[in-house]
């Protein structure tokens, strides 16, 4: 107490700095200036925009969402035609973006892990091939790669009459990839049900095995159990019921294919381009993650007498994943944002449908761009919220 009083006394008796030199006053001034500057800037922007819009006779507001769009979209996941509203067109574009991003993330992750592990292979040739893949793909702009796949590869394929056959009854031509469409027949529900039951059973088996290991130190045969439950059981049901699944094969009729299902060349080009490009970055992340697990950990695992597989599963991979996952999530986010490049090859994604066609038709630049940015922003904020949660869960708890 006495000490505190004396310091305060000393501060009082010290020569006072000028009012404007006191840190808290300065900070307050800086902040007020920042706020004022932003307010003035905002005011100028709003008044200018309002004046410009008035001159172009564009009413601002979100009423246009309910107006009829009048244009068609080449790929739709939900029912849509040109008599529906701009709002519906927005949903169509958003779903197309999410579709290509979701499938792209799966493909890029698989390819990236394969290439990343291949780069660490003890086989010289495999490691070098993976390194060449990474160095070539990473250093060429994604947009160029999309153009390459779309214009130079897919758009120079022959027409429907000279289609390349694809194993399994599909065809590849300039109009896209035609694949047999699965048609479920009565009884197929049971197969799906068996599959779900199998997956639930394997999860229970895994939990039981974990409890048994805690209690007795022995494990149950989880791998074989899972294979039997989740793969063999639905397969057996499928065969017992007489294969209740038919395929609708595409057939050449006249000048085009009928039946089956078709993947548009725009979709294929965007998917392939995104997956191959992002995989080269994921490969580097995986490599760094595995190299980041210190050698002592592997030696310790060996010293404990773990087998090769156990060492990987129980020691190396959990620690490598801790390094890999944060940058991996940001690559997923990059892939989602990069899917907006689909606009350059006419893939009807959010940017192409919404910030392209709808913006041009309505002229509502401010609203449309703000909504587009808002969508991507919320996607990325959701992802980083998930990542923070995940990091907290996975973080090493140290003393």
């Amino acid at each position: 107490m006495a000490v505190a009083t004396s310091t305060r006394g000393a501060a009082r008796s010290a020569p006072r700095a000028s009012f404007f030199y006191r840190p808290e006053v300065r900070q307050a001034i800086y902040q007020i200036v920042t706020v004022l500057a932003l307010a003035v800037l905002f005011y100028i922007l709003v008044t200018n925009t309002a004046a410009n819009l008035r001159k172009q006779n564009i009413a601002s507001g979100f009423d246009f969402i309910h107006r009829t769009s009048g244009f068609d979209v080449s790929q739709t996941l939900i029912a849509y035609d040109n008599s529906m509203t701009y709002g519906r067109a927005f949903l169509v574009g958003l779903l197309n973006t999410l579709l290509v991003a979701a499938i792209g993330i799966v493909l890029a992750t698989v390819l990236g892990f394969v290439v990343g592990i291949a780069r660490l292979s003890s086989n010289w040739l495999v490691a070098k091939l993976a390194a060449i893949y990474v160095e070539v793909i990473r250093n060429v702009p994604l947009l160029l790669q999309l153009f390459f796949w779309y214009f130079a590869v897919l758009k120079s394929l022959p027409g429907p009459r000279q289609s390349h056959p694809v194993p399994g009854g599909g065809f590849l031509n300039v109009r896209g990839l035609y694949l047999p469409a699965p048609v479920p027949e009565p009884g197929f529900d049971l197969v799906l049900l068996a599959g779900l039951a199998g997956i639930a059973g394997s999860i229970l088996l895994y939990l039981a095995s974990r409890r048994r290991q805690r209690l007795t130190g022995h494990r149950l045969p989880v791998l074989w159990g899972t294979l039997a439950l989740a793969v063999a059981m639905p397969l057996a049901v499928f065969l017992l019921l007489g294969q209740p699944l038919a395929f609708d094969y595409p057939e050449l009729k006249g000048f085009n294919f009928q039946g089956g299902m078709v993947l548009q060349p725009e979709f294929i080009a965007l998917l392939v381009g995104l997956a191959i490009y992002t995989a080269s970055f994921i490969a580097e992340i995986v490599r760094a993650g595995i190299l980041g697990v210190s050698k002592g950990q592997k030696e310790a695992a060996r010293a404990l007498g773990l087998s090769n597989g156990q060492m990987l599963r129980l020691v190396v991979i959990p620690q490598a994943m801790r390094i890999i996952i944060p940058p991996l999530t940001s690559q997923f986010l990059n892939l989602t944002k990069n899917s907006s490049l689909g606009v350059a090859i006419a893939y009807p994604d959010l940017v192409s449908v919404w910030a392209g066609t709808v913006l041009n038709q309505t002229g509502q630049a401010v609203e449309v761009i703000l909504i587009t940015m808002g969508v991507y922003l919320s996607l990325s904020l959701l992802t980083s919220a998930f990542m923070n949660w995940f990091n907290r869960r996975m973080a090493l708890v140290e003393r």
Partner: protein
Amino acid sequence: MASESVSPVTMAPPRRAALGPVAWLRENLFSSWGNTLLTAIGLLIAYKAAAAILEWGILNATFTGEDGSACSREGAGACWPYIAAKFGQFMYGRYPSDERWRVDLVYALALAGLVPLMIPRVPGKLWNAVYVFGVFPVLAFFLLTGGAFGLAPVDTSLWGGLLVTLVVATVGIAGSLPIGILLALGRRSKMPIVRWVSIGFIEFVRGVPLITVLFMASVMLPLFLPPGMSFDKLLRALIGVALFAAAYMAENIRGGLQAIPRGQFEAAEALGLSYSKRMGLVILPQALKLVIPGIVNTFIGLFKDTSLVLIIGLFDLLGIVQLNNTDQKWFSPTTAMTGYVFAGFVFWMFCFFMSRYSQMLERRLATGHERGPLRGG
């Protein structure tokens, strides 16, 4: 010492099989059955790829011709005369032929400044930096745009090809550096409003794709200006790119600021330096040195992203290749592929060189701020 009979122990020579190329092959390619299988698959892929590249690029390629018909043979490979005929456009866009020496001169001036700056051993870095960051931009501006010192003015709508790619990338990165520094300092500031404004800007820009920022710059920026006022399309793209890169740059620099030990801040404060002097003389010189590799990596990303400006109607290298690929005179089945391969190679050369340079810097600049891999307990 007494017993002379002990013969000195000599090491036996290594067994034959442990040395030489055969042993290397056995070690690295055929160490097990699985490995041998992998090698076989790898050889197949390598052979297929090499054969395809060789056939397309050289064996079946066309080397002479006046138009697309020369490349329209059955099974024709690359159409190299197309690149030769369009090379000027790919490099300069529609920049007038008589004035192209100005662009070359700018390249030469840039090289004269950058090469000695990038080689660590060359002395006089200070004056070199003054030239590159102070004198060169002014020279380059007047040389490229003209309209002064007796140079004919060249409108930016005529610029194109690699010139636009380089201009957008370098101006973008140069513009993003000061904004990025301010944002990074703002994000670490004790003043809540300044901090929240910085965080808001950084997270907003990093959360949206560059395309939407460019759309905003090209569609919304004209709306923001007073009615009747407008400015150059290239300048609009430059503003968009610089603001976009600034957010990434800020995060880079923040990483560098966080790596500076607390004692440096305290020592600078103890010396009685003001905030700007503390940052300018003590903290930033150390922090910026740490993040040079990160800046180069941001630059590589930006360099590749410049290709996006074609979506808002500017013709960078990819844009001009895309435009010329549809030229009727050079129509052939392989024109587009040849154009993309050429553009891809140019982009690749720049990016690969820069990434190697950044790796070299990373090794060189590892001066012991970070602890590096664990050394013992």
